[in-house]
């Protein structure tokens, strides 16, 4: 009897230790309602995307990132003003730099575009690393939504995604196998275009936005939990 109890107690201790260790490793979460109360209060519908602030070494990162943004934000239930057009308009007015536009009052954007909120984009990383036996493509960014009516920040989130483009020798043995792997990695890394990487990063970052009016859960997802401080995500 005693031995059995002892064994059971030991088992329970080990089990709960594992469970606790598992829990401790979980990232801290917060509910959308707690994180973004102002967005739930203001309920913006029409979003105007501003040209990205580019802190990366890739000069064309701005243009290429913008092709990926409309879809995830629209799927969350927002009306996103057509980015190709609004971007051209900003260029035509000679204000391609968001840094300059920050000085313009939100009410001007409301008047000219009917925008309820501005979407700020800060591109932090947009690079390819190739080191013969491996390679990766990394995109990191920060997004923020600011009200045109009140100038308050309604939502902000950032994320980083690393796509591993390394190719392992796998079945192929010896030098020949290694050479094949090196070439494959080079091709994979060079050919890696940013769209799928940006898509995956957007999925992570934009899923934290409270649902907009075109989604069923509009104003009803306050309990949805998001990760408070997202760590870089790796995939391949």
């Amino acid at each position, binding site marked *: 009897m005693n031995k059995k109890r002892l064994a059971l107690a030991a088992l329970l201790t080990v089990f709960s230790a594992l469970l606790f260790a598992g829990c401790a490793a979980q990232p801290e979460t917060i509910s959308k309602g707690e994180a973004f109360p102002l967005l739930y209060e203001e309920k913006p519908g029409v979003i105007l995307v501003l040209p990205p602030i580019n802190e990366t070494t890739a000069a064309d990162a701005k243009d290429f990132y913008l092709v990926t943004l*409309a879809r995830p934000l629209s799927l969350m*239930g927002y009306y*996103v003003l057509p980015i*190709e057009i609004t971007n051209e308009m900003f260029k035509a007015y000679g204000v391609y730099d968001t840094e300059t536009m920050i000085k313009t009052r939100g009410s001007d954007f409301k008047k000219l575009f009917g925008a309820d909120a501005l979407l700020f984009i800060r591109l932090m990383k947009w690079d390819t690393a190739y080191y013969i036996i491996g390679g990766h493509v990394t995109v990191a960014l920060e997004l923020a939504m600011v009200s045109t009516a009140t100038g308050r920040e309604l939502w902000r989130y950032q994320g980083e995604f690393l796509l591993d483009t390394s190719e392992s020798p796998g079945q192929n043995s010896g030098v020949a196998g290694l050479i094949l792997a090196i070439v494959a990695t080079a091709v994979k890394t060079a050919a890696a275009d940013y769209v799928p990487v940006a898509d995956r990063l957007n999925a992570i970052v934009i899923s934290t936005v409270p649902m907009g009016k075109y989604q069923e859960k509009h104003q009803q997802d306050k309990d*949805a939990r*998001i990760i408070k401080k997202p760590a870089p995500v790796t995939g391949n």
Partner: protein
Amino acid sequence: MRLVPFFAAFLLLAACSPGKPNLLYEYENYARTLYSYKKAPSDATREAHLAELDRIIAVSAEKGKRVPPGIWAERAYFLGKAGKGEEALKSLDKEKETYPESAVFVDNVRNEMKGGGK
């Protein structure tokens, strides 16, 4: 509850995989053709993207879904670039019809197009 952000992320990701869940909009290959156009702007890449926009509109109708925000307007923009002003204006009106909140924006673009012959 912790599953919700992952589920939402999955919804957004899953559109590219078979057996996808029912998303609010159909985007087909939108980013791909637009990316190709921006990388190498030409009549060919522009026509390819316009064809893709038409496809999005057609598939949306087939599936009884609204055309995604901005698609009608973007179609108008590229039609304008192709010199098809009349069709472009009609497409702009479809944007306003589908999304009344775009009225301020659409009216401004309309005036610019009529005036500047975009």
